[in-house]
């Protein structure tokens, strides 16, 4: 049940973008690689990966790019799925780590069998044999989100952090990020408390409403770093009719977007799942074919989790760009894909 956060429903991200870049880059080198894109478990965030995989297969002439979902959010189900796909002849894996640390042993085994793997959407914790991590920088996203919240509060106030599963290592990172952003205000902003384990609907509903019930007059802002509490908090503020408390959430759930439109939510941190799947498949194909290798001295971003990070694009959706952010993400995807080879790979 790990990492049930982030997520969005940008299914709509059209093939258009794919077709655009596909014509340029793909079709030339048909490959017989079978690539699997594996999320941590069933979650709406990953839905765009299916289309992204299909598009990538078509655009880049890959034999197969399949979206394979573990039956539940359990690390062992994810690793079993990976293992069985190896038995079925898959040659590369794009994985959202069901656990940032726990996945590494499996990746190590994959690379020992000359099967490359990349972390998509979320990173594995270094040291890891993942070729690279293309995703949302967990720390940075939480940091930027908190900064956005602080800005909307006018630089002062009391905030509460709503976080995901406590036993997930990423949760600790997010807590640190929030605290870092708060510390930079030199005491103008204070954290009242971190509320964790809010990734299940009912738990989130209960805890967040309890928080609002008890302290709605004392707190000024909410930063949510997980998918479900973002949705629940947006909804609760709307019920309460409270526009005073500012909320910055994560992901573009319809409820959150509506909240932004109606002024109950200050903003939300968008992620780019389609781009992660699409670019991830493209690069994995190059690596698995032996055409390219990962460059050691590329301009990687260093994060607390890994030294081989590529930002798939994080941007704040607010009232200003709620209508256009999808196009922004498309641009980012195109940009990453077209420059990836030169920036990060050494190719024959």
């Amino acid at each position: 049940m790990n990492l049930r956060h982030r997520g969005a429903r940008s299914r709509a991200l059209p093939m258009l973008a794919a077709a655009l870049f596909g014509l340029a880059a793909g079709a030339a080198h048909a490959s017989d690689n079978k690539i699997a894109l594996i999320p941590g478990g069933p979650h709406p965030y990953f839905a765009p990966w299916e289309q992204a995989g299909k598009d990538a297969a078509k655009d880049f002439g890959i034999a197969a790019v399949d979206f394979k979902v573990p039956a539940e959010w359990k690390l062992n189900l994810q690793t079993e799925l990976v293992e069985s796909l190896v038995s079925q002849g898959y040659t590369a894996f794009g994985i959202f780590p069901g656990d940032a640390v726990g996945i590494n042993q499996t990746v190590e085994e994959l690379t020992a069998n000359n099967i490359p793997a990349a972390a998509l959407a979320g990173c594995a914790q270094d040291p890891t044999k993942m070729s690279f991590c293309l995703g949302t920088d967990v720390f940075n996203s939480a940091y930027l989100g908190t900064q956005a919240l602080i800005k909307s509060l006018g630089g002062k106030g009391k905030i509460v952090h709503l976080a995901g599963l406590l036993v997930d290592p990423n949760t600790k990172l997010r807590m640190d990020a929030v605290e870092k952003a708060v510390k930079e205000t030199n005491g103008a902003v204070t954290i009242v408390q971190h509320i964790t384990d809010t990734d299940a609907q009912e738990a989130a509903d209960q805890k967040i409403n309890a928080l609002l019930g008890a302290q709605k007059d004392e707190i000024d802002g909410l930063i949510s770093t997980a998918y479900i509490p973002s949705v629940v908090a947006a909804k609760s503020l709307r019920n309460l009719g409270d526009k005073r408390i500012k909320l910055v959430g994560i992901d573009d759930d319809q409820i959150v977007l509506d909240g932004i439109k109606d002024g109950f939510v200050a903003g939300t941190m968008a992620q780019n799942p389609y781009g992660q799947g699409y670019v991830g498949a493209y690069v994995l194909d190059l690596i698995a074919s032996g055409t390219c290798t990962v460059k050691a001295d590329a301009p990687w971003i260093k994060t607390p989790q890994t030294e081989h990070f590529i930002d798939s694009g994080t941007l704040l959706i607010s009232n200003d760009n709620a209508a256009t952010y999808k196009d922004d993400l498309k641009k980012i995807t195109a940009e990453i894909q077209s420059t990836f080879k030169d920036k990060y790979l050494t190719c024959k």
Partner: protein
Amino acid sequence: MTLSVPSDSRARPSFLAEQSNLIGLAAIILLFWVLFTSLAPGFVSTFNLFALSRSLAVDVVIGFSTMVVLATGGMNLAIGSIGVCAVMASGYLMQTLGLPIPVAMALALLLGAFLGWLNGFVIVRSGVNSFIITLASASLFLGGMLILSKAQTFNALPPEIAAFGRMRWGFLSPLLFVALGLGAALIVLFRFTALGREILAAGANARAAELSGVPVGRAIIIAHTLSGALAASAGLMLVFRLGAAMPSIGQDWLLPSFLAPVLGGTLLAGGYVSVVGTILGAFLVTTIRSGLLVMQIGNFWLQLFLGLILLAAVMLDRYRSVYAERRSLGRRDSGRRNSGRRA
């Protein structure tokens, strides 16, 4: 229905009859293996067999951990929490304190045993249902672990740990042999020791056992201690498997821990366990899961097929045993009587 047979004709019930349940289970597993092997060649690839053996090893030990408590007619909902406490302790001891691996492992096992003992002690002393006590202690232990570890992962363990997890003996993981070794020890315990017998007697009829001089309280405490140690073992096996000590281990153990022993014939009511049955029960579930994955059934629908096949398997086993019973009776209505009772 007294069987008026003189006592000197003391034919033991045949080995086959006694083991018929296990044989039935084994036959069903065999059936699935034939099926999966013929439908999906990847199923018997060495890579898949290795992966299967490794998952099986952990599931078997988790099953044992619940089984020893089921023997007393109780439950242990805290095995996941005990497991993760042992895991984090081992991580701390190896990574932070730098203790040698065997020492750290031994201490972690000891911690698991101690937490199990604590469960047993409170259950016996308070006389409160083990379900409630272990429900509460599951929270307590997990909470204690979180307070102490701040949910930090230990991922700089000695490299030997991960190496052992990747090691292959033939095409099997050595972890499976560890699990089977534990199983052998449990068979000895329940068949050949006074303690094991006492645990079973306490589970079958605590009052009668007590009046026969069995220290029932002690038997229950020891069963829980053992359960704690086994939960810790399962946790440590995952440390080898994952090469890291993580606070999220153990959270999803509860259902598999019951599934394996109950499928294998261990009674929830207590008083009877089947070690081999638990191994076969875990084996059946692992086989089905792995087979479905290899056959590429489902994705999102996988759970449905898993449920249906599990249902089919238990029903097949049920009808096999009813059929066997009828043949030996030459009678029809025995099935009716047995129906329904008790989860």
